[in-house]
């Protein structure tokens, strides 16, 4: 039974990690938590599911279309709901309301368009969600691929931040005004970060569908735990998000096995509180106290 807990924890943890990395990509250059991030994940899942099941598009084509559509939507969100707020004050907090408003608008619209019934999407061939007993562990080829792809995505994004664009994004994250003085356009970095974050949200949604199905509730389901992974890992740290995502997934699965019914979400929140009490910036935070 414990082996099942590990498989279940790693599968869910991969998805939490990807949501957390999406938060980080947007947070680094803008210091904005995108409260509509969960809805972008849901839109990616629903769009690809409809293309695959209704229009019978191949998996890769549906993935590409979903990535593009959600990336464009995220850029639109940045233009309408974030950029005007940051233009007034880069330290302002009005983005809390504006990104929440975007989330509410999306939630209202999808409720009119799609029903609550999930859309079941098979895993892309040659992968399958059929369980294979490997060395006493019941795991599917899709679950193995999900974990591997998650690690590769995190490594890829970390490498991206070592490129010229990535360094510019980190410079903006460090000091928006100083970066501007060095010839970096923070608005362009913000736009591209939202495009990348939107595309990653869509990818998360597409990857989640074979295990969680495509449903309008998917965003809310992953948002809180993804946010918890970002907080535990340390805001802005993708390696932290990876480890924290798996920590939350495994804790959640283990608590389902060990604890009285109904306390599983509480355990996750206690874990967040516990980590933040010991390390307020999260496990891998680069935040340091500054003497001024």
């Amino acid at each position, binding site marked *: 039974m414990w082996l099942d807990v590990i498989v279940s924890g790693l599968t869910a943890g991969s998805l939490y990690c990807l949501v957390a990395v999406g938060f980080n990509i947007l947070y680094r250059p803008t210091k904005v938590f995108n409260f509509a991030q969960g809805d972008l994940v849901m839109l990616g899942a629903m769009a690809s599911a409809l293309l695959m099941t209704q229009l019978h598009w191949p998996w890769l084509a549906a993935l590409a279309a979903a990535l593009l559509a959600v990336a464009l939507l995220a850029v639109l969100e940045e233009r309408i709901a974030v950029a005007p707020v940051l233009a007034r004050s880069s330290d302002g907090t009005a983005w809390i309301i504006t990104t929440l408003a975007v989330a509410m608008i999306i939630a209202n619209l999808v409720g009119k368009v799609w029903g609550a019934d999930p859309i079941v999407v098979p895993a892309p061939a040659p992968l399958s969600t059929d369980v294979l007993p490997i060395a006493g562990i019941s795991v599917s080829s899709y679950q193995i691929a999900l974990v591997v792809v998650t690690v590769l995505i995190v490594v890829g994004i970390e490498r991206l931040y070592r490129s010229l664009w990535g360094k510019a994004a980190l410079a903006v994250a460090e000091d928006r005004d100083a970066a501007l003085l060095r010839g970096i356009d923070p608005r362009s970095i913000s736009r591209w970060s939202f495009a990348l974050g939107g595309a990653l949200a869509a990818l998360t949604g597409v990857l989640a569908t074979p295990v969680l199905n495509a449903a309008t509730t998917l965003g*809310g389901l992953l948002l809180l735990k993804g946010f918890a992974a970002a907080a535990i890992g340390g805001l802005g740290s993708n390696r932290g998000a990876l480890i924290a995502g798996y920590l939350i997934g495994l804790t959640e699965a283990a608590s389902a096995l060990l604890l009285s019914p109904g306390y599983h*979400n509480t355990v996750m929140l206690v874990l967040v509180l516990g980590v933040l009490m010991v390390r307020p910036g999260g496990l891998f935070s680069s935040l340091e106290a500054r003497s001024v």
Partner: protein
Amino acid sequence: MSPQRSLASPNRRTVLSSGMALAGGSLLAGAHSVFAQTGDTLKIGSARALTGLVASSFAPLYVSVKIAVEEINAAGGILGRKLEIVEADDESSPAKEPAVVRRLLDSGAQALLGPVGSSHTMAAVTTSTAAKVIHAGGGWAEELADGVKFPYHYQFTYNTGHQGEAIARHIVEKLKLKKVGILQENSGLGESGGAATTRSLKKFGLEPVAVEVYPANATDLKVYLNKIRAAGADALVLWNSPVQGMLLTAAGLQSMKWYPALLGGNSLFSNTVLETTDPEVLKNAYGTLIKTMTYSDSEAPGARQVAYAKRVVTFPESKFWEINAAISPFYDYLHLLKQVVESEKRFDTERIKKAFDATKNYPGMIGSISFTAENHCALTGDQMVMATLLSGKDPKSMHVFRQRA
């Protein structure tokens, strides 16, 4: 800017702000009439989700309102006054229900229907009770049938108590199984359904071998299913409201290659479940259903129910959830309201309440309807049966009916 110029060509800001004010004004105007009639009408307030996450999934339950209003108005209305439905949007949020009910009453509604969902109805019924208005909500919680607590609210459907009875009866008398595991969602419905099943099993001298509660945002149910299997269960009772719970359960059972008898509420009848679940899981799976909406090898559904079902499936909003559209509580509510008001010869809330409370064996679409002053649930436990999930593929089902197990 000169006054003349201002009058001649309003600037862009003025135009935009006026447009937004108009759009906002129309959105915030509150309750609005649908199926509006000219002349003197009898207004019925309808609380429903027109926007938000549950808007399209709850829409099928309001098809019955359209059918009933059409039939009643074609027959001359109530006391010669046409029925007019006034709708207000709860935005899929239970927290909005008290304000929605208030808005409907302010718009002149004399009786209320909706919203759908136990938690939504619970939130609405406190306001309608305080206002002393006849009300039929779309909730299944047992508490909503308490005529002492909510004297003006009537449950024109079954509740989780009846479902628990039907499930326990089927496990013990038909399947002859004794080891029952319960998997329930951590929600009002899960708690109420799990408790009702345990209570009914006790009447047969059984205790569940395991009760597992999963969070509504669970991503995998295999750990819970493993614990139930380890406890030795040969029947699994699932209490979930969204279909996702059933899909995750089916995926877990399939991956474990464990196929116990699977029993649950009517969310198991979803077309998505039928089309995508492993046939091995469905082979021994049953959901609770009102007897009038079922058939057997020797007994077809009633002619009246068949005609009604044919009508229900013509509405686009019924698609995918025809069964929920057909068992909606509002059709019988509106027809009984017409009968009672016309026999009283006036629309008097206290007289209607008294007549509703005295209703015995009214031949409703969903079954034989009776109320007392204390019990405001229309149906009794013996009117609930278990039906097979696989019969949804049978042409005889017409997407609405299911075969009795």
